[in-house]
């Protein structure tokens, strides 16, 4: 019988010939992780399950990214719970301050996830990993505890909607703009409970960095997972990092899709999500001029090397506007080092940007750049809900890194071509 890539991966993880949308399955998981916010609760629930050890210490990771380096005593206490657990159970994959980065970026970079995997994390943006051709989904702490205990997770097999991306993106239009445009069209619950499968020739032109920012935001449309078939770009990226064997699945040509939507990628513009929903998507030119207090380049959505390169193209030889602040947070230490070697960090420093060790920090209004009442931030993150980055009367515009950098230079929302004319060399 014909299946989508999502269905094939799930079928393989229940040792069945097929699974059908709507079916509830008890699925084997290849890898699980939690972060410094979700791990303590997962550990507490795991301990209630009376299971002495995790199902496979080599398939469990804890990654500190949200409130690290610890912002206060309470968050330090939370980290301590996880550190103690990791040591007591002698778990090998623990990423603490200095070696740690934003989990979704770091775990892919470290090769813990690959094509064909079922990958589960106690963080909603776990869907990020679907760009590698894996089934990856976010769950809460109790679910994670159960997966840590049993190596299995109950799942309802999702219906798949296929997005066929035609043509090629224009300069300054990135994977981020593409996914924002889709969310703008279908709404923040437009893919609720389903699988979003991205396909089409526009993808072939996109690097892994851009692909990750697309699947990363599948959850902003309510999806269970976002996924792409692995191709040469995937393999070139994944092979040098691989830690386990992988399996390449492709959707059957006659697979059963709930819907197939065509998107002309070449017609898309550079966009932003205006406050306070990722679904409020408009061309950046429509809101160019809004005064901006802070610009933030980072996060699991757009804190990768190509994002930093794009920002540096705009910022090179320029200064951050006197009434605006710029924060740059590379998503992982490896990206930080690479940015250093490429001279990007120098450019950000010269421009007057503040650069921080890898952390989610400002993305959740946690620390390292919290907004005051009435302040406006242009952010490369994925959510602009009320109060997301600070005061409930602060506002967040979501954008690509070029827009955030241009807005930092001009002190107002701006299209990058208002600052630089040349196309982006990525």
């Amino acid at each position: 019988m014909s299946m989508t890539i999502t269905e094939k991966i799930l079928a393989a993880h229940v040792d069945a010939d097929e699974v059908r949308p709507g079916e509830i399955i008890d699925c084997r998981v290849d890898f699980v992780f939690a972060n410094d916010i979700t791990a303590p609760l997962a550990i507490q629930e795991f301990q209630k399950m009376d299971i002495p050890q995790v199902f496979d210490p080599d398939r469990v990771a804890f990654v500190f990214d949200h409130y690290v380096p610890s912002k206060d005593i309470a968050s330090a206490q939370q980290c301590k719970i996880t550190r103690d657990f990791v040591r007591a159970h002698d778990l090998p994959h623990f990423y603490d301050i200095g070696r740690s980065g934003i989990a979704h970026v770091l775990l892919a970079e470290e090769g813990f996830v690959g094509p064909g995997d079922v990958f589960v994390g106690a963080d909603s943006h776990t869907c990020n990993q679907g760009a590698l051709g894996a089934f990856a989904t976010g769950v809460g702490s109790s679910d994670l505890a159960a997966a840590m205990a049993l190596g299995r997770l109950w799942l309802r097999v999702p219906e798949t909607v296929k997005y066929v991306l035609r043509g090629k993106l224009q300069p300054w239009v990135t994977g981020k703009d593409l996914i924002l445009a889709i969310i703008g069209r279908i709404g923040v619950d437009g893919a609720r409970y389903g699988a979003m499968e991205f396909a089409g020739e526009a993808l072939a032109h996109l690097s892994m960095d851009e692909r990750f920012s697309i699947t990363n935001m599948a959850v902003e449309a309510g999806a269970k997972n976002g996924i792409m078939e692995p191709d040469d770009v995937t393999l070139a990226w994944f092979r040098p990092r691989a830690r386990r064997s992988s399996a390449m699945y492709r959707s059957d040509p006659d697979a059963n899709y709930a819907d197939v939507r065509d998107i002309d990628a070449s017609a898309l513009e550079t966009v932003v999500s205006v406050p306070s929903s990722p679904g409020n998507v408009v061309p950046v030119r429509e809101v160019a001029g809004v005064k901006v207090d802070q610009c933030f380049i980072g996060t699991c959505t757009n804190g990768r090397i190509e994002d930093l390169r794009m920002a540096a193209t705009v910022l090179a030889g320029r200064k951050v506007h006197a009434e605006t602040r710029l924060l740059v947070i590379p998503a992982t230490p490896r990206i930080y080092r690479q940015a250093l070697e490429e001279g990007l960090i120098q450019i950000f420093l010269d421009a007057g940007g503040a650069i921080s060790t890898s952390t989610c920090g400002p993305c959740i209004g946690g620390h390292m750049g919290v907004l005051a009442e009435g302040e406006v931030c242009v952010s490369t993150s994925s959510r602009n809900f009320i109060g997301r980055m600070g005061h409930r009367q602060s506002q967040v515009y979501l954008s690509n890194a070029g827009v955030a950098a241009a807005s930092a230079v001009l002190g107002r929302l701006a299209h990058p071509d208002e600052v630089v004319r040349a196309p982006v060399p990525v």
Partner: protein
Amino acid sequence: MTIRGKAHKLGHHVDTDVIIPARYLVTNDPAELARHCFEDLDPTLRARIRPGDIIVAGENFGQGSSREHAPIAIKALGVPCIVASSFARIFYRNAFNIGLPLVESADAYAGIEDGHEIDVDLSAGRIDDHSTGGTFVSTPIPDFMQRLLDAGGIVGYVHAQRAQRKQ
């Protein structure tokens, strides 16, 4: 099982950031989380919710983050169940995992006003509005979710799974 309570009506797409802002995610203590529940949505709402009151919301309740702290905070306010037109996926799992039942009914959302006394019959899939006499049908709770509720949440479910395997 029937739950009676006063309805607090909220809008569509209520997200986990307004249910419990991330700045408070430095504790797992349900009572502490409850103190900040819905703070960014309406700072006065928390004080108006009495134990036993029921949340009635629109589409996609609980969208956003995976933070289980969100249903934990609501449960710790004493809310025995949530009625909504629809729920976001992770919130849905999390709520059942901690033993907080969710009931889907777009008709109930359309028909029930803020402050109405309502009865939610979980097993029959029925919601009665005593203030108007209106009756609404809810989507039946899937068998699997019912088993989770019966086990008292995912921890109990895991215990049951292991007992079964040992047999």
